[in-house]
């Protein structure tokens, strides 16, 4: 659990972070979202004391971090840098082994753990003996991730971990990333300025502007209950795509035609509208069989899906 209490940081005249407070629960992923220069990185760095706040406190698992030795604190927190920051003079294997060596792991243990991780992150075995400059940007980012994850820290801070990637690669890595069991056990604070990415990966989003927190909430709350104009406008451009991602079949269940009590192979109503549409589009099927909470199953085609979604939307607006 991470808690920030009214932390502020000034660089000269610019107030980079202004009385920011939030709480990240155990195993939750909080995404800091905002335009360039709004103070995301500064906020993140104050969690592992790369930057000391001018005011306010930070607690990790209930303990004030200013009372801890910064080096010890940092070895216990995974950190993925905005600029990757691999050591150019270390091989991939050595880069990954930096923190384990600081913690005096034995060689065998480091080896086993490194093998396991690179498999999970889809890095090849022979890349281990390469130097960072011999890797592609995407591969470097995976190494950066492996370096942060290798000691399996319970807290993970990530600063635009996919920032250096093109859109196609990014989407695929995000998917892989989301699927990693390893990450589901962790309390994560992640920074991005990419709205899609925030919605893809966040349990909750913390929207920032000019050093201030504008709104904290689930993606759905941000979409449907924006606290002010800024929040509304921030998402406006990609609203429809976001809504498809946020709204689940379960949400539009009442607006779908009645189905039948049925057993057999069916999809979960946890599926979001975007994924449902993709499934319909990519397979030859004209209908998806979805089962709701009440054991009722519905066969839905594309038109029904859109119609149900539209009715749900109207209901939200009139609420």
């Amino acid at each position, binding site marked *: 659990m991470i808690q920030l209490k009214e932390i502020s940081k000034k660089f000269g005249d610019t107030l980079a972070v202004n009385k920011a407070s939030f709480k990240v629960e155990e195993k939750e992923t909080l995404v800091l979202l905002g335009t360039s220069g709004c103070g995301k990185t500064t906020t993140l760095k104050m969690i592992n004391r790369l930057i000391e706040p001018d005011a306010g406190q930070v607690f990790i698992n209930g303990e004030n971090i200013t009372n801890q030795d910064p*080096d*010890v604190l940092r*070895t216990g927190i995974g950190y993925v*840098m905005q600029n990757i920051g*691999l050591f*150019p*003079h270390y091989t991939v294997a050595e880069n990954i082994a930096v923190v384990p060596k600081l913690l005096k792991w034995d060689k065998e243990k480091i080896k086993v753990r490194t093998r396991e991780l690179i498999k999970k992150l889809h890095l090849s075995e022979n890349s281990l003996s390469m*130097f960072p400059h011999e890797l592609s940007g995407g591969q470097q980012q995976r190494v950066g991730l492996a370096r942060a994850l290798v000691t399996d820290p319970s807290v993970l801070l990530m600063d635009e971990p996919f920032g250096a990637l093109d859109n196609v690669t990014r989407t695929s890595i995000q998917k892989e990333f989301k699927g990693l069991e390893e990450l589901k056990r962790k309390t994560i604070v992640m920074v991005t300025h990419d709205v899609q990415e925030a919605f893809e990966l966040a349990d909750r989003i913390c929207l920032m502007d000019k050093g201030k927190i504008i709104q904290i909430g689930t993606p759905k709350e941000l979409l449907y209950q924006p606290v002010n104009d800024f929040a509304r406008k921030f998402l406006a451009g990609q609203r429809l795509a976001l809504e498809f991602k946020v709204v689940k079949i379960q949400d539009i269940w009442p607006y779908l035609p009645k189905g039948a009590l049925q057993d057999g192979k069916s999809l979960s109503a946890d599926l979001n509208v975007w994924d449902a549409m993709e499934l319909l589009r990519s397979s030859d099927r004209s209908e998806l069989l979805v089962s709701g909470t009440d054991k009722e199953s519905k066969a839905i085609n594309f038109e029904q899906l859109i119609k149900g979604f539209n009715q749900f939307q109207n209901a939200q607006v009139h609420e």
Partner: protein
Amino acid sequence: MNEHQQTLWQFMHEQSDKLFAQTLQHVGLTFISLLFAIAIGLPLGILIARKRKLSGTVLGIAGVLQTVPSIALLGFMIPILGIGAKPAIVALLIYALLPIIRNTYTGIIGINQHVKEAARAMGMSKSQILLKVELPLAMPVILAGIRTATVINVGVATLASFIAAGGLGEFIFGGISLNNTNMILAGAIPAALLAIILDALLSLVQKMDFKKLRKALYVLPVAILILGGFYALPSAYGSSLTAGFTPEFMGRQDGDLGLKSIYGLKIHTIVISDAVMYKAAFSKELDVISGYSTDGRLKAFDLKILRDDKSIFPPYYAAPIVRDEALKQFPQLAETLNLLAGKITDSVMTDLNYRTDYLHQTPERVAKDFLISTGLYKAPKNGHNGVVRIGSKIFGEQYILAEMYSMLIKGNTDYEVSTKTGLGGTKICFDALMNDQIDFYPEYTGTGLLVLLQPDPKIAKEMAHDKDKTYDYVCTEFEKKFKIKWLKPIGFNNSYALMMLQKQSKDLNVNTITDLKNYLDKN
């Protein structure tokens, strides 16, 4: 050309022991001082990379130190550290410091900020960051600095021979003062090769990738230590007394070689420049030195000349040498210059030198006082009947003689005078005379014979110990070969001499070179 190369080869072959020893000393000096320079420069560079405010001051001081001329720096060192290895190493260290500090500093501050931050973010302590991230990443730049420093050191180390620290400078500067090209080359070629080889080796290390570099970095300090250790090798033989000889003296038949072959003198010898030799003798760092019999410092430092009882030192009677053309152009010149003939004895010359060298009177004043006291002085006539150009070598006695001649010419003739004093050594002065840049300068019979004429060794040996034969020989030969006339000798004989402190000479009862040899053999 071929013959020339052969003789160089022969020289190197003959002197291979010395050459080997000098090369080792040279490498040793270079690397000992390099080691110290790294030991000081690296931490300083790291310090100013941490505290940037200090960087201007530290780099400024190191920069200024580097602009101090090497000879001057060596000179400053002597009162503090004496002669020999210590001051030489310190001076070299000072030259090597700037590139090492500067490159350590720029290497560290040039490291990608994100990489440093990543190191911090992963929980590395300050010292871990320094050792595992900053130094390895700055290493190629630091190595470039070390490479520059090494090359500088190889060059400056040649000057170490001025203060008895050995090295290839012994051949180079000995060769220059002896006008011996082979000797110069025997020192200069190995020195240049050393610089080139070390530069190439270090550039290889510098260009290694990180993996190889890591291994190389374990080897490098060991290599530097071993190379530095060359200097610590003991010198050929020890003896109860220590002699300091100039590089010139070391290489001459009528110098150290003669002492060895004719007297059988075995003395622990270091090579040292004329400029610091007397002081070193006075402060008892040296027991015996080679010097000139009319040197003013003889008097200043209370030294005694050991009599050359087997007369290996040829006579060096001073006399003006004049181009024949100049004598034609200035008919009164010979007569005027000869006014000084026979007027200055050894002890008078020593006294005159003492006044300039030790009492710091100007050569002009010393010259005038002398001319007045001997009744030769006449007020200048301020004539305009052509300009006589006087040259002199770059030491005190020659300045005084040039001043005297200038006054005599001005007082006795209608000629004007221009003096070109300080024309370096024999070779420069003589070339100026040959090339019609000066009309005359005072030269010594021994030098004329052995350095300028360089006759068959047999002829040289035959007449070298006879004052009149030598004078007659140079007179005829110069006329024949160069169209240059020797006028009448001035009187004093500025020959080589071995000298010792008066007190020590008395204590040991050593008055002649043979006494010295006997004393050394017994002790």
